[in-house]
């Protein structure tokens, strides 16, 4: 916002010894009051060493009427202003900011009488008492001094002072000059692509703002009930928009960042809040533009995309941007959706006779494609363990429901194996789907299984459980997973920082894609985390840490998050290298058309994960 305002300490008594001793000539033009609360005393003080002129506003002694008989000085915000008329009057050639503007917060209901206060100009221990004028309400352009010679940065400084003093009241100073949209566009340009609103939380604004001449002093979003955002010129993310610069040649320098997006917290945002964007120019003129409010609904995929589209991990400030804007917006969005959707229905359909007192519950979320159920069932049917297994498929994709239920019926008729379908009514995400499955599980042991896992031989469930029984402090156990060509997909997870991605901790699968014989594969090995593609865990333990965390978006990092929660509680995680299942990784997840967006979702999840677990991970990898 241009140059900083100079503050003069009231304690500052010493002055420069240089310069001729000369009495200060001074005059008060206006004694104004704005909104009954803020006094504005403006005038001029001519002195070659004008920068050393101090102004003091104090209660006039003995006046009981106002101020309750207070004595002493009042805090003053001083601003030096250009006064061409004073220059002319004293035939002074060189520039000099003879003008002064004193802003005084007035804490009383009643306006002061001019004789209640006393203004002195002081330089080199000489003081000049200035005569005040009767205080009158100021409005509009009158706040910018008696003469019209204020420079625009001086006006901007006064606005900044007023903002500091009166907050958003500055936008409500009566009589400020109003600019119509057309007039405003003569100075600068803009376009808002989206004002995604999350009622009760805030607005995600995105678009561009082309203000190459820095005409704006501030820009805020406000609601009809006078809820104001922070100054978006300071609290937003700016980025290059060459298309904008090309569309408006010569309006800004080539490195100007026209792109703008911001998460704007507005905790009291109503569904129809009457959003307006208020632009205050450095000249003190107001532009007020209505902003169409686009409230998000429960389908938030598009909204998430919009929040992420302009985020770039290569931005040096990405951590702050993630924290203040993108991450804040996304987590609010997902929380809002969860609240909006209420508890999942948990519709349960049993196919085949229910397994009595099952030894374990296998939970498989289905998203995007459901033919995996057929492939798994075709393999499970030859495995005696499944006679004692509660097999739970969680349909996490409402789009599939209509086709899926008849498919399940046919499949269960042809493949006589018992399974049940749990359907939440909407897309819960990987964690939510598993948690819903776990809530519907009736055994003490859980196996979280991806739909694209195919066993290599029967009996794996009971064998792994048997091996688990001999392990100490076991949190999660997982088998070795291999790709369809037999190369390793998972042998435990490791954490690694990646400088290419903002130094966030990422989950790595060491040895991935390597032929097994090239790796050391012990029968049992301990790891800081194991994959969620196939997890064996006691239900009580799972429940004790609240299951999988549902704040990660679209299935990522929940597995390591769960492992770290358990690790913090003292449990250990193991990979059983002698047990092999096939994992056709990402077959169920490559449905995102927009790969860039998916990548950014991953970054968001990684950022969240790092925020939460960075410290523990550092200890674990040390």
């Amino acid at each position, binding site marked *: 916002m241009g140059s900083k305002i100079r503050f003069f300490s009231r304690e500052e008594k010493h002055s420069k010894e240089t310069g001729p001793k000369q009495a200060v000539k001074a005059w008060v033009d206006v004694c104004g009051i704005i909104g009954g609360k803020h006094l504005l005393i403006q005038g001029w003080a001519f002195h070659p060493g004008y920068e050393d002129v101090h102004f003091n506003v104090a209660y006039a002694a003995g006046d009981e009427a106002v101020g309750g008989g207070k004595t002493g000085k009042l805090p003053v915000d001083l601003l030096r202003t250009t006064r061409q008329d004073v220059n002319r009057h004293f035939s002074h050639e060189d520039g000099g900011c003879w003008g002064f503007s004193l802003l005084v917060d007035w804490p009383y209901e009643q306006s002061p009488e001019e004789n209640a206060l006393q203004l002195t100009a002081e330089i080199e221990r000489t003081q000049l008492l200035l005569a005040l004028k009767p205080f009158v309400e100021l409005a509009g352009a009158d706040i910018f001094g008696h003469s019209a010679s204020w420079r625009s940065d001086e006006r901007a400084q006064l606005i900044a002072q007023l903002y500091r003093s009166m907050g958003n009241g500055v936008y409500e100073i009566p009589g400020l000059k109003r600019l119509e949209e057309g007039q405003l566009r003569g100075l600068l340009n803009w376009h808002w692509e989206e004002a995604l609103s999350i009622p009760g939380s805030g607005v995600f604004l995105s678009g561009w703002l082309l203000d190459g001449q820095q005409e704006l002093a501030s820009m805020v979003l406000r609601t009809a009930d006078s809820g104001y955002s922070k100054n978006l010129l300071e609290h937003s993310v700016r980025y290059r928009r060459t298309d904008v610069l090309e569309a408006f040649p010569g309006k800004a320098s080539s490195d100007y960042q026209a792109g703008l997006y911001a998460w704007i917290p507005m905790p009291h945002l109503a569904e129809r809040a009457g959003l307006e964007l208020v632009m205050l120019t450095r000249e003190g003129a107001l532009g007020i533009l209505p902003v169409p409010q686009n409230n998000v609904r429960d389908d938030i995929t598009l909204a998430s995309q919009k929040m992420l589209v302009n985020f770039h991990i290569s931005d040096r400030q990405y951590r702050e941007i993630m924290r203040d804007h993108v991450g804040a917006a996304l987590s609010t969005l997902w929380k809002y959706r969860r609240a909006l959707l209420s508890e999942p229905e948990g519709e349960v359909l049993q196919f085949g006779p229910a397994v009595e007192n099952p030894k374990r519950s296998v939970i498989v979320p289905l998203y995007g494609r459901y*033919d995996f159920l*057929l*492939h798994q069932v*075709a*393999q499970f*049917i*030859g495995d005696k363990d499944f006679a004692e297994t509660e097999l739970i498929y969680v349909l996490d994709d409402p789009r599939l429901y209509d086709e899926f239920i008849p498919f399940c019926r*046919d499949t269960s*008729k*042809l*493949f*006589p194996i018992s399974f049940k379908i749990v359907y939440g009514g909407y897309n819960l995400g990987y964690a939510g789907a598993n948690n819903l499955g776990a809530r519907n599980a009736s055994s003490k042991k859980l196996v979280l299984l991806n739909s*694209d896992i*195919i066993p290599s031989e029967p009996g794996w469930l009971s064998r792994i459980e048997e091996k688990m029984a001999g392990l100490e402090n076991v949190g999660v156990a997982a088998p070795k997973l291999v790709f*369809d*060509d037999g190369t390793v997909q998972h042998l435990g997870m490791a954490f690694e920082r990646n400088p290419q991605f903002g130094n966030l901790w990422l989950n790595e699968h060491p040895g991935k894609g390597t032929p097994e014989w090239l790796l050391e594969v012990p029968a049992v090995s301990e790891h800081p985390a194991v994959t969620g593609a196939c997890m064996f865990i006691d239900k009580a333990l799972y429940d004790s840490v609240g299951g999988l965390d549902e704040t990660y978006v679209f299935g990522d990092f929940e597995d390591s998050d769960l492992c770290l929660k358990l690790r913090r509680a003292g449990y250990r995680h193991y990979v059983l290298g002698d047990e092999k299942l*096939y994992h*056709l990784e990402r*077959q169920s997840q490559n449905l995102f058309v927009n790969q860039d967006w998916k990548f950014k979702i991953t970054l968001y999840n990684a950022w969240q994960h790092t925020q939460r677990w960075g410290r523990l991970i550092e200890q674990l990898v040390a």
Partner: protein
Amino acid sequence: MTEQRILIVSHGHPDHSKGGAEVAAYNLFKEYQRQGLDTVFLARTDQPSHGGSAFSTINSDREILFHTHMSDFFLFQSGYKRHVWQDFHGLLQRYRPTVVHFHHYIHMGLELIREVKNTLPNARIVLTLHEYLAICANNGQMVKPGKQMKLCYKSSPSDCARCFPDRSTADFFLREKYIKSIFKLVDVFVSPSHFLIERYKVWGIPKEKMVMIENGQPEVEAPPPRPLAEGEARGRFAFFGQINPYKGVDVLLEAFKLLPEDVQEQVHLDIHGANLDIQTKEFQEKIHGLLEDLGDLVTLHGSYESHEIGRLMEQADWVIIPSVWWENSPMVIQEAFNHRRPLIGPDIGGMNEKINDGVDGLLFRSRSSMSLSCKIAEAISSRDYWSKIISGINKVVTSQECASSHLDCVVDDSKGFSSEK
């Protein structure tokens, strides 16, 4: 033995379509019937049924038509699974076959095999493999898609995914796993060629579950050699079968084009082939172009009825099977031998197995018109040569022998074929 009830399942009825597999299945059924066995022939049809029922009958109440279809040719999924778990299930429950012999699963769905195991866990399940459908998603041909139609020697999920860019390696992995999960339920696999057995062995079916039984032929009186005019060579060649890119008619025609003029003067080719009209425009144009070039040298006869085969064979000296894919045991080879006519075929797959080069026929380098052209010239080189080859032709397996082999090896489980239950 007499207590056996044998359900034969075929993907078509020969009254509707005359494919080798349908004919072989039906012949077996008729032979069982002739022997007084309790048997039912269930043939899939695409024709609408009365009142939308799943079944109707044809010829007799032992020949049942199954009005069903498949929706997914990648995983051989039934297009209407209720037909399987309700209608087919009902048929199984009522008839209670002791043996269910599938001559195919295509057009019906692999689930039929699953359903037999579900409904009648002790019934013996027999599956005759006619081509490489389980191994290869390119119509079971083991020929790579694309103009070159390269021969494929071995499948793997990643290789197959390269043939079908729309599918992933994982899709093929799952396909193989799924088909094998069903094939596991089969007690005996029958194949009319060792070549096919070897391919399925490499793919993963235990060799001991597979048995080679050649397709049976009706007993016919072999027609006498075609009477020759004075100085005429044994130069009458015939092609029998479909005209499609896999059958190599283009290779055959090109071979005739390459013949030296003096040989051309002594030969003639009769093409008894159907379905050229349903091929791609490009392929049709190619064949028509070649036919035009060859003029009187070739006669295109169109399709024939199976009872005509004897008369057509009678007019031929040699039968040529120029297939550019592996084949299994092409019916035309057995038919030609049954009518004592020598074969000229490529040196691959089923042809290589069934034709003994220089003994009962001639082998040429697969897909090489030049090589075939040389063999044609060789074939007419002398009348004695023809007589020598004719004398090398062995008696073919009869329908009766074929049925007996089936009964011995397939139906009677005392012969050591045990299922993995």
